[in-house]
């Protein structure tokens, strides 16, 4: 009987996770939609500013800031500068309802009351973007989103240079090493080692070469650093002396993490009547996680295929992370988690 119950418990957790993922996926499509609306409003703002060029007032005075309305809506809807938002809370509440429909233990009080508190111990537990949020933050419904700022356009300059693909050939007799660029080599289907390439032309034509990383000379590194510094200095001058200005300019909503990470994890209990147990029943614990994959959240991704939800296999190492999770969550709930009544009164994060 317990095997059959275990199957039901796992299935219930899977279906609840998939359902949460479905609501989450719809939310990410909403992000695309609101970004498209934001883009439209930004264009209107630009047109108004352009039309007022002849006036004596500065840009800040003629800017109608229509886009601010959309950005504020996005902020409240998706919880960008608040601990949570209206839509993440919808994911949470739909998840709870589906958990009940799938006969999982649900001891959360009905939503809506101002005296609403996290039950101790809570069941089921939903973790939002657990890998990137960490345990305390993953407990609060969130969609791992943030406002993109104008600084985004400068980040490429600040990023460390990726190692260039360079290939080398070492002569066995002399020990001399020759380097070849990506363009000078071709795919070698019958190479001895994976990743080996073949020289296209020249004295070493047909010779196998291996990939070498970090082969830049000190001179090359210095030259690149100087180039970067010069560019950055020019940008700083253009920006009026500080890159912080760019941080203050909000653009559209984008993924908080790079690479994007959108996951929804369900940790649940399923009650099984067992005659031999003292109280006549026992709880089976089941855990299930889904990830959402999609092309992006920008306005121009509006017509891209919708985000897809897929179950992630749960490895043994993750199960170990969740030993006594209910106790940990209960400790957080009794000490640090905000209640709904004060959650939206919290000051926005700086």
């Amino acid at each position, binding site marked *: 009987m317990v095997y*059959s119950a275990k199957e039901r418990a796992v*299935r219930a957790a899977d*279906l609840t996770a998939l359902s949460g993922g*479905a609501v989450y996926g719809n939310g990410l499509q909403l992000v695309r939609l609101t970004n498209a609306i934001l883009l439209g409003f930004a264009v209107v703002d630009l047109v108004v500013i352009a039309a007022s060029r002849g006036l004596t007032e500065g840009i800040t005075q003629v800017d109608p800031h229509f886009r601010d309305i959309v950005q504020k809506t996005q902020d409240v809807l998706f919880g960008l500068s608040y601990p949570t938002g209206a839509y993440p809370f919808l994911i949470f*509440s739909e998840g*709870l309802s589906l958990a009940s*429909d799938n006969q999982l233990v649900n001891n959360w009080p009905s939503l809506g009351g101002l005296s609403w508190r996290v039950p101790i111990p809570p069941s089921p537990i939903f973790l939002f973007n657990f890998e990137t949020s960490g345990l305390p933050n993953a407990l609060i419904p969130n969609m791992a989103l943030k406002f993109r700022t104008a600084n985004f356009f400068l980040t490429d300059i600040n990023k460390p240079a990726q190692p260039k693909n360079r290939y080398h050939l070492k002569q066995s007799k002399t020990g001399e090493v020759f380097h070849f660029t990506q363009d000078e080599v071709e795919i070698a289907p019958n190479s001895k080692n994976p990743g080996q390439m073949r020289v296209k032309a020249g004295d070493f034509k047909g010779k196998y070469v291996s990939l070498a990383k970090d082969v830049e000379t000190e001179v090359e590194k210095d030259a690149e650093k100087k180039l970067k510094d010069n560019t950055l200095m020019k940008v700083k001058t253009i920006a009026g002396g500080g890159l912080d200005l760019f941080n203050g300019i909000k653009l559209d909503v984008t993924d908080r993490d790079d690479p994007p990470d959108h996951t929804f994890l369900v940790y649940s209990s399923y009650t099984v009547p067992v005659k031999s147990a003292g109280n006549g029943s026992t709880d089976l614990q089941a855990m299930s996680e889904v990830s959402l994959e999609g092309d992006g959240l920008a306005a121009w991704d509006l017509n891209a295929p919708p985000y897809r*939800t897929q179950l992630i296999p749960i490895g043994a190492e993750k199960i170990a992370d969740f030993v006594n999770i209910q106790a940990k969550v209960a400790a957080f709930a009794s000490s640090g988690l905000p209640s709904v009544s004060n959650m939206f009164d919290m000051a926005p994060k700086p």
Partner: protein
Amino acid sequence: MNFPKKIGNQRGQAMAELLLSFSLLLLLAAGMVQFTLLFSAKTSFEQACGQAARHFAAGQMQTADFAQDVWVSLGSNQRFFDQTTLQVSPSATSSLVGQSFLDNTGPLGPFIAKVKSVLLNYSGQKWVIRIEYKAAPILSGIFSKGIPFQTELAVLKYPAQD
């Protein structure tokens, strides 16, 4: 004084006892096998229902095809069940909080329906599935009408129409 007459020949007693106990043991073993098959069938039924729900969530089939999908997902375990007894009762999930909120908007009906399909483009379904297990000979004596299995499950899918 008359004493009971002593049984003269005790040959075959062990054989008779062995036959009696062996038949009981055989009956016990057969019962164990049948209960194993019963629980295996129950587990495969639960798995098949879950598989069909996952197909629905992935947009690979509509709710009208749910019963057929459950039957196909049973695979080789179909032999334990009677397809004519497979009943699927679909109903709305108790969730869809957001959609319920938009439903209570009164006279703006068609407009709200259009907005809803854009803003909350997910839908859900709950099913109660029943089927009867064709009990093997020993159990069929006890359960002449078969053993009913029932399960309940629900899932949401996005996009609502796929």
